[in-house]
């Protein structure tokens, strides 16, 4: 486990350039605690502040690289966790990426063009499929979620984004300005890569 200070620095590796409140939402710590952690980290040189936003520094990245092996020793040594990650990468993660592509672009006469969201059935089918993949992700990542409480928090936030998308707020599928399914998925992916000491596959 990371301690709250390490976790605060870690949150900036998942979400670049963010306010204390946004980071608190990612890691589920009280905003005051995150603010205090960020101020300390800024004094230590682990993060850089710009107005009310923060960025991680090279020193912060090194701090994390040193902390991970101890903090996540059990996870990294578990065959079940490694198998779950293999399944995540080759299965649901690939499916979400391809669904995001289908959401943003559409094949028309062999070419991919931006999806103008004029075809409600096309969009509904994608949102429906995303829902089934997200349901399945909960099962696939169970070994990680049992060892690390943040995984369930990410899954809940993805579910909340999906519910908004289903309710008609379609920027919650892959919008970059909001905590969309894709935004939170990306954060979760980065988180579990760091947990397990893996690189993002290309």
């Amino acid at each position: 486990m990371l301690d709250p200070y390490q976790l605060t620095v870690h949150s900036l590796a998942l979400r670049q350039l963010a306010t204390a409140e946004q980071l608190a939402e990612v890691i589920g710590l009280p905003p005051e605690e995150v603010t205090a952690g960020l101020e300390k980290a800024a004094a230590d040189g682990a993060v850089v502040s710009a107005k009310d936003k923060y960025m991680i520094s090279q020193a912060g990245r090194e701090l994390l690289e040193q902390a991970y092996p101890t903090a996540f020793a059990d996870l990294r040594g578990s065959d079940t966790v490694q198998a779950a990650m293999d399944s995540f990468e080759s299965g649901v993660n690939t499916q979400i990426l391809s669904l995001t592509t289908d959401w943003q672009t559409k094949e028309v006469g062999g070419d991919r063009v931006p999806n103008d969201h004029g075809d409600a059935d096309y969009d509904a089918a994608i949102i429906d499929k995303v829902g089934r993949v997200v349901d399945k992700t909960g099962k696939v990542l169970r070994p990680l979620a049992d060892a690390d409480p943040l995984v369930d928090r990410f899954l809940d936030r993805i579910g909340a984004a999906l519910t908004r998308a289903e309710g008609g707020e379609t920027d919650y599928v892959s919008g970059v300005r909001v905590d969309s399914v894709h935004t939170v998925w990306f954060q979760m992916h980065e988180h579990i890569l760091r947990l397990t000491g893996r690189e993002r596959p290309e």
Partner: protein
Amino acid sequence: MSAAVNAGTGYRWLVVPDDPAVEPSRDLVGGKAWSLWRMRSLGLRVPPAFVVTTEACAAYFSGDGLPEGLVDELAAGIRLLEQQLGRTFGGTERPLLVSVRSGAAISMPGMMDTILDLGCTDSVEQALAAETGDPAFAAEVHRRFTGFYGKLVLGCTEELEELPDLAAVRETVLDDTGETVPGDPWAQLHGAVASVFASSRSRRAVAYRRHYGIPDDLGTAVTVQAMVFGNLDEDSGTGVLFTRNPVNGTREPYGEYLQQGQGEDVVSGRVTPKPLTHLAERAPHVHAELLRAADCLDREGRDAQDIEFTVQHGELFLLRTLDVGGDKPLRYLPTGPEANPFLGVRGLRLTLRNPDLLHDQLRAVVRTARHTPVSVMFPMVTVPAELHAARRALDRALDEEGPADLEVGIMIEVPAAALTADRFAPDVDFFSVGTNDLTQYVTAAERGSPRLTELADPLHPAVLGLIGRTCETGVPTAVCGELAADPRATGLLLALGVRELSVSPPAVARVKQAVREATTEGDLRNRALAAPDAAAVRALLSDG
């Protein structure tokens, strides 16, 4: 939670909706099974079915797995279907296959879709091939069933429909889920029933109920219905019938019939069906029975009917009829092509064009209102006449279902409705301003478009002005959408006269805090309304 054994039927968890004189409780059996009963009570033949009740669903959640005694009753229910059709579940001769579908009193997304052809195994496939003389058909039934079960029960997310054969489907399901479809038909049935129950608590179903104020403990029933086959012999076939001419709407039946074929054959394009007269020539009594049934449904439903039917060994079964019953998902309603769907037939405009659907939905709402407080809100209203029509439909539902305590309101997302809100005021208990849509209509800018973000801002003074104007009617006004969840806007909304904010659960704490801190200085309101654009309003809010 334990249901008592019904003294009349001897069942604790099942209802068999086959007696025209005994109307089943819709809360207990769900809308689809109720529709089956209704067709049956009109003297129409439907494939035999039984229903696992919503009480069994409640017991499933209060305990661990299928409730005690249900496994035995499922076997008893299957025996009934076997007896009526002279077939055997899992049998090596004349096998019985069934469909399994969810059915709540109020239909909702997130519930499990229908599994067809359940009961199919390797030996059943052989038996079906021998009986029909069509091994390709039997293989296709097995392939499709494995796909349904893999997707809906085992949660496989790979595409299965396009895979060429059973082996490919099995391999993909195993790779993707680590599980296989049971080879025992009873295990298939138990797995499917449990999955239907579980789906009533899926994230999506829970969110939908919360959004529409439907009680959260409303579970689902499960309808198990025999599959019938149109490809057994020359006296079998399948077809569709429309009760009106699709071109000019006159009441003249129009349809197609495929002798010795299944619906899948038509859908897949393997064969081309013939006009209905073909059935009239081959089996005049079946044809006459079909026309009588169609006429009966057309009169009963007060609307055109689209009927799917199968003839099995010379016996007519009605499979599905649209415009009868209340379980038609909205997305299948034909709305016709529209140049700009965003400005087209949606919301109340859509439901008013489909009076039967609206009627069924309102009846379900009224029934719910008997045991829990309910607010009905009509979306996309432009003129008071639409509200009046909807209220008449509601009054009719109240007449039929008995009195219930209901609040009625409308969504304000059309600028015309906001500007004339005072003319809706006498007929509503509340307004709810949908700021996401309202903003798009007022600014003519799509929210989802990254290049229009600055224009499609709900803090535009024109949007705020419309919210203020709606509040001035004195009718309690709520705000929903992105704006409601933005704590920076809370004070301003209160100053405009808003009394309620609808926000998603994660935002509740933040907005509550903002409400507590809000100072309703009158100046903020006037300065915001006088601002040139949304950016100026945002600047105002961050100063204050």
